């Protein structure tokens, strides 16, 4: 049985038994190469589920849809290990209870989707611990490395060019499972800390603030860069933040559901080489 078939029958079973009220997964898209998020509530519809290497979107954010989890019933979601980390962070930040989440875990290896064992987020702690180790050893992104070698003037120009394209559609925010604020800071106009205009200054402010707000919370799922209609390499900013919290505080976002937010906690011996 193909992995897709296995997961379809698992989804069917979960729905039929009433274990979950909904399965959030992937379905066929407008074109053969596209996948789209779908929401299955009846076992008969489970055959619409698709699972293959084209399933890239992190679906975790859909769990926060207003009212979805309010009835205490469970929902099953197709999640990669990074998706599971997302759930951990959302739980750590009290946005959902992990008891309500059934994980349909998978991983994309090249051209194939591979099944991951486990039902609850806690079942994936081993895989996540492994990923932390790998992340530590992983070299910076190629573009990031190039950037680090530039002078600050060149780096500023690079980002000025990238941010100048931003149209402030906030697709990055809408696509990000971590952007669940009831009111985004940019939507607070008393005072208006972040300029809402999409001139380069306003765009720079917006993108810096977003990256900062994601420090220690980003699982590097790539939803933001994928969503950006003008292809700003937002992931570079978020990856840099992840590398910073990893090296400075040995902090891997989403390690478990009890992890304290990196910026709401501290150690007395945190590094401070840059402080005069």
């Amino acid at each position, binding site marked *: 049985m193909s992995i897709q078939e296995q997961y379809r029958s698992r989804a069917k079973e979960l729905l039929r038994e009433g274990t979950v009220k909904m399965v959030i997964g992937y379905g066929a898209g407008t074109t053969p190469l*596209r996948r789209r998020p779908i929401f299955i509530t009846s076992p008969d519809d489970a055959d619409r589920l698709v699972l293959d290497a084209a399933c890239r979107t992190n679906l975790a954010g*859909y769990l926060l849809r207003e009212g979805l989890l309010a009835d205490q019933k469970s929902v099953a979601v197709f999640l990669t290990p990074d998706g599971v980390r997302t759930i951990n962070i959302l739980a750590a930040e009290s946005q959902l209870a992990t008891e309500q989440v059934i994980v349909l875990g998978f991983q994309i290896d090249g051209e194939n989707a591979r099944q991951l064992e486990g039902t609850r987020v806690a079942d994936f702690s081993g895989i996540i611990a492994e990923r932390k180790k790998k992340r530590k050893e992983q070299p910076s992104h190629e573009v990031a490395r190039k950037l680090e070698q530039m002078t600050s003037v060149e780096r500023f120009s690079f980002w000025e060019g990238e941010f100048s394209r931003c149209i*402030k*559609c*906030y697709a990055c925010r809408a696509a990000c499972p971590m952007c669940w604020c009831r009111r985004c800071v940019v939507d607070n106009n008393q005072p*208006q800390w972040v300029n809402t205009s999409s001139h380069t200054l306003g765009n720079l402010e917006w993108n810096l603030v977003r990256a900062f707000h994601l420090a220690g919370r980003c699982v590097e799922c790539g939803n933001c860069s994928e*969503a950006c209609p003008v292809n700003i390499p937002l992931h570079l900013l978020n990856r840099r933040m992840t590398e910073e919290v990893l090296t400075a505080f040995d902090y891997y976002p989403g390690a478990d559901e009890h992890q304290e937010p990196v910026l709401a906690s501290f150690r007395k011996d945190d590094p401070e080489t840059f402080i005069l």
Partner: protein
Amino acid sequence: MTKILYANDLTACFSLWRKEGMRVLGPVSKAKTSGFGEVQDAHELDLNLVLTARTLKELFFPRTEPMFSYSIGKQKIETGEFLPSENACIIFGARPCDAAGMAIDDELFNWDYRDEYWFRRRDRSVIITIACKESDDFCMCTSLGLAPDSAKGSDVLLRPLASGNGWRVEELTPKGGKALQPIASLLKEGSEAAAPTAEVPLLFDLEACTTWLADPENFESHFWKEISERCIGCGTCTYLCPTCHCFDIQDEGDTYEGIRRKNWDSCSFQLFTMHTSGHNPRATQSARWRQRIMHKFNYFSDKFSVNSCTGCGRCTRECPVDMGVRETLQAISTLQK
């Protein structure tokens, strides 16, 4: 016999226009995205694109635009204007769907008052459109009553030659004719055949859709929630739409001085209709998606007798979750059957 512009002459053509004080803009690809930008040389253009990612409307309705500056003194308030210049501008290589969008928005911007920012730019610009010989999976102009060679909104229409060497030139407006004068020497008489235009399949029955939408019974239909369940509420579809025109007025600055700006806004945003009280009449994303569809295919056409969609397909093409006008209208036509 008709006039032909050969691709080889394009750069020369551009310098002739520039000599007349006209700027030349056209489709360019830069940093993994594409849009309209100023060019000096024909090689800078990316004419192979089916459609630029960003639309023509940005040239007339920029995403952020200063309207006036102000400075508040103790005794008086001073203001300064930011009206766009009237320097002429050639837009070379627009697509018919984008050009049609500008004509549709002309109605809007000249409705209860004449929007100087829009019309100064419209009046100074000449849109030279190239008919499409190729389309992609998302194109749907035909379903909206347009075609890959529609003339709507264009001043000049170019039809690609079958040889690929140039274009047959069709002058559509006096403004277009005037723009062709400086390059008259480069327009050769000829009878070379044009390449066939792209075949864009009909995807839905527009009339059936508008009828369904016009029925008040359907306003509260379950359909809206189902069709938009995955919508994440970003502004991509609206910001990349050639006709979406909503904007917000923002004062930017400090206590003494600042600039009043006109910024794009989107009905997809929760904040778009949020009241100061905290009440939001369009509280759900499905209500916001319904608004977008209703506005395009019901309210707008009620007022201006034209739907505010040209079938460019960008809403689907660029949607992070694979939604768009296409899926919704297709689904509505199915409901009707």
